[in-house]
């Protein structure tokens, strides 16, 4: 065997001998000779005729070898982490892993996309392979099955795990962890989180009370408040801390539940706001209502109108105009007054009515008011089936990005008709952008701008994989290849992952049926 290792040095030199030599070399060997020591096994190996200097060199060679092969058996006491627990869902099949791995590499800096990817896997009945991805210890917006891994990684990395919040553990959780645990519960079971908050809020110190309200505001916004939440926040008007009172007041105001306001005052405010507008049919034949703003003689009048708009709820405003909220939204004349438009958008976002959100969503698309954040927030108030309709509406707009469309669909809606979808303005525009990007090199169109466009297209290609139904993913790939993308282009990875997952699921289904 040519690579048979040398083990002889350890036979020739004991640990004590090596340590003795090392000690001598540490301070310097000039003071004494190695050979003044009694005979030892390595003396023979060194030979009799060599000079002291030569013997010293041979000895260092021997000691060096002995050091290298003396594998440490006396390791310090070690702590071993428990095995990573398996999840309920099977890990991603090998056929899909290369795509998943490449997607992770491409989008590792955009956690939001990674989370969407994981939710998509969960929808298809799979979990990530932990060799490819593990959550961070403070992740709180992943599918629930990953809690096991979140706890495990917190333990493995020496970070305190975020506990599952309950009445019995609340008081034993450290303040920073309590906020994380509350945030996680709020996302998953809002009613339970509020019930716990009501029970324990008064026992928390003022600063922690304020932080809990901040958490509530950041996660619960912009959705409506339940009656329990309204009652709870209203009850905080007598809190000992001014900061807490302010937080509660702001949350209530944001939702048009002014703290302790007299209903008669609300009605008066709504009527005063309604008086700033005229709601009447568009014409003799067109009976649809148009809502137009009356001329305002002074800037003070405008300021007052906007102030009222911030206080009055959508429902009260519509009622004061004598029309339904949806009619108010349908009849609203956008772009005549940016601040007024924004006030109406805020009213709708805080409304409890999915229909109002849907109506505004469509009106904003018509008016080309394409703020993706607003559209996504509005869509979040719609039922899953309605989100599919909103996604299709969004595809009718050429200015919208597919990334926004995917967020609007919320992972619960996908298109199944390639022919119909591919003729929509959004997908036609997407194809044009792809074709344009393929026709321009980095140097021709200015590096930074080109990179930004290409990055946006990468996101859109990823998003396309999220909004197509698995059964049409193959056909979608063909369409993109027709546009000019090569079959091996990594921008097709999300679609290819979808194909792989579907194939695996179908195989499993067939196997299950065969077995049954």
């Amino acid at each position: 065997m040519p690579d048979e290792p040398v083990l002889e040095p350890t036979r020739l030199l004991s640990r004590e001998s090596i340590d003795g030599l090392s000690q001598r070399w540490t301070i310097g060997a000039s003071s004494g000779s190695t050979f003044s020591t009694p005979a030892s096994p390595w003396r023979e190996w060194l030979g009799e005729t060599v000079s002291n200097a030569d013997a010293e060199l041979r000895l260092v060679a021997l000691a060096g070898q002995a050091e290298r092969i003396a594998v440490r058996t006396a390791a310090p006491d070690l702590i071993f982490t428990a095995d990573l627990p398996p999840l309920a869902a099977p890990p991603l099949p090998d056929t899909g892993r290369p795509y998943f791995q490449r997607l992770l590499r491409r989008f590792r800096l955009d956690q939001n996309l990674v989370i969407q990817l994981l939710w998509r896997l969960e929808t298809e009945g799979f979990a990530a392979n932990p060799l490819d991805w593990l959550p961070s210890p403070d992740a709180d917006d992943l599918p629930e099955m990953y809690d096991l891994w979140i706890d495990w990684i917190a333990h493995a990395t020496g970070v305190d795990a975020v506990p599952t919040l309950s009445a019995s553990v609340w008081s034993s959780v450290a303040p920073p962890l309590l906020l994380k645990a509350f945030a996680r519960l709020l996302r998953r079971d809002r009613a339970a989180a509020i019930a716990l908050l009501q029970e324990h809020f008064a026992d928390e110190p003022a600063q922690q009370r304020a932080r809990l309200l901040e958490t509530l505001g950041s996660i619960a916004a912009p959705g409506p408040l339940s009656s329990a939440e309204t009652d709870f926040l209203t009850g905080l008007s007598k809190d000992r801390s001014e900061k807490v009172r302010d937080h509660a007041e702001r949350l209530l105001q944001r939702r048009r539940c002014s703290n302790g306001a007299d209903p008669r005052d609300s009605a008066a405010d709504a009527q005063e706001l309604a008086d700033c507008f005229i709601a009447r049919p568009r014409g003799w034949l067109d009976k649809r209502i148009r809502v137009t703003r009356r001329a305002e003689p002074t800037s003070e009048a405008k300021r007052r109108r906007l102030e009222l708009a911030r206080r009055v709820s959508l429902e009260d405003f519509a009622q004061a105009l004598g029309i339904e909220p949806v009619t108010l939204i349908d009849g609203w004349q956008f772009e005549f007054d940016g601040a007024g438009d924004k006030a109406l958008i805020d009213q709708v976002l805080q409304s409890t009515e999915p229909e109002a959100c849907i109506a505004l969503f469509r009106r904003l698309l018509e008016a080309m008011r394409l703020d993706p954040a607003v559209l996504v927030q509005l869509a979040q108030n719609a039922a899953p089936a309605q989100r599919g309709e909103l996604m299709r509406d969004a595809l009718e707009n050429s200015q919208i990005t597919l990334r926004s469309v995917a967020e609007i669909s919320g992972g619960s809606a996908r298109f199944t008709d390639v022919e119909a979808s591919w003729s929509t303005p959004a997908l036609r525009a997407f194809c044009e952008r792809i074709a344009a990007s393929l026709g321009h090199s980095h140097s021709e169109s200015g590096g930074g701008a080109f990179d930004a466009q290409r990055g946006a297209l990468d996101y859109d290609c990823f998003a396309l994989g999220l909004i197509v139904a698995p059964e049409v993913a193959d056909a979608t790939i063909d369409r993109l290849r027709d546009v000019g993308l090569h079959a091996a282009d990594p921008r097709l990875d999300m679609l290819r992952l979808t194909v792989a997952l579907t194939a695996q699921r179908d195989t499993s289904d067939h196997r299950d049926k065969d077995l049954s």
Partner: protein
Amino acid sequence: MIDLAAIEALASDQKALRAAVTLYRERGWSILRRSADADLIWGERQGSGAAPYQMAVDLRDLASRCSCPSRKLPCKHVLALLLQAAEHPEDFGEGEPPDWVRTWLTKRRVGAPPRTNEPVQAGGALRSLLQADATIEPSKARVKPEQGSRRAAIKANALAEGLDALEDWIADQLKLGLESFITEAEKRCAGIASRLVDVKAVSLAARIEELPSQLVRLPREERVKAAVTELGGLVLLIRQFRVAPNDPAATREIAKAEAPATVLADPNALRVAAQWEVLGVLQTPRKDGYASVGTWLLNLGGQGPTFALLLDEVPASRARNVAIMTAGEQFEAEIAFYPDAAPLRAVIVSRGAGVPPEALQPWPETDVPTDRAMAPPAAAPWRRETPVLLKDGRLGRSKRQSGPDASVWWRDASGQAAAEIDGTAPPIAFGLPLLATAALWDGHRLKLMAAHTPLGRVSLIEDQ
């Protein structure tokens, strides 16, 4: 079908075209592939480095990419690939485009007309080049034989004197004490390294220049041991060279490695055809502005050496761009080893298709005791790092320290052997038994590369 006229028009000048024809005649492709739709072709061939150059062409518009440093667009390698495709399309097997081709696809343009240069020769000149006598005129010897041997003798004498000086220097360090050596390592090593460069012991000089930074990375209490190990290794290397001045392995460690082409042309070089796995790619920046890029391969075939190292030395600024293989990738290849009693360094002779997931081979079983596996090979005891394949084990953290700074250890399942890890490992490596672990052992720390767990293979090198 690729038109020769189109290739001719693509060439930037006649020199590029002639060089491409020469490459085409030499063949020397380690890989030739086309995509299923035949729109893409790509290939690999040995250049001046250990890792082969990689080139790809999109046949829809003849856009191309090559990993060689040439500024010509397209370079001779791409032109040679196109010639190969034009003349012998049957040589291109169908395959899945590897990651480097995919990445290039997202960054390039398509659809624009191919950028062509003025045809370098009119009317089928390329065809006549291809049909011309393939004999390549040997370059004229610059040095007369007798001059050459005299110079060689002078060079050998200088080298021997340099190595004597190095031994004296080592003896001096032992006399002066390793404590002071460690404190002044930077200055002392620079002095002797400079002397070694003068006598053309370039590899040895680079090794000694790296020593101070290696010592500094270790805890204070381990530095003497590391110094003893390294100085002892140098003594062994010098003695080997004295005993066998023609030993190519020792010469390589002291002076300079042979060019890959020399190894490929050597009929006595050990060649091993097997399925290989890329364990990982390790980049080590050096003080001279260069970086060593080592691609570690594991032999899955059962015959021949267990490991192979493809080593490139490139300017540090280019290290990231060196054509590298993907960690975990398995492929069929014939590999030629540099002459060595303990073969390790190698070049790829020819490379087959990437292995599909269903044909992935498991790592070889190892029943070598851990201490034996971690020992340097008898035939090359001066090597600083030994690749090892460790049996069933697990990673743990020292109880003495706490938090993320705790030292990380690999321990075998029996608890009999343990070794400290260089740096740390990804969290997942702590949560699963490591059924087998591939690493480099330098006598002080284990540098982890990859491991097999019950869930599959995990790469233990950052970013791979």
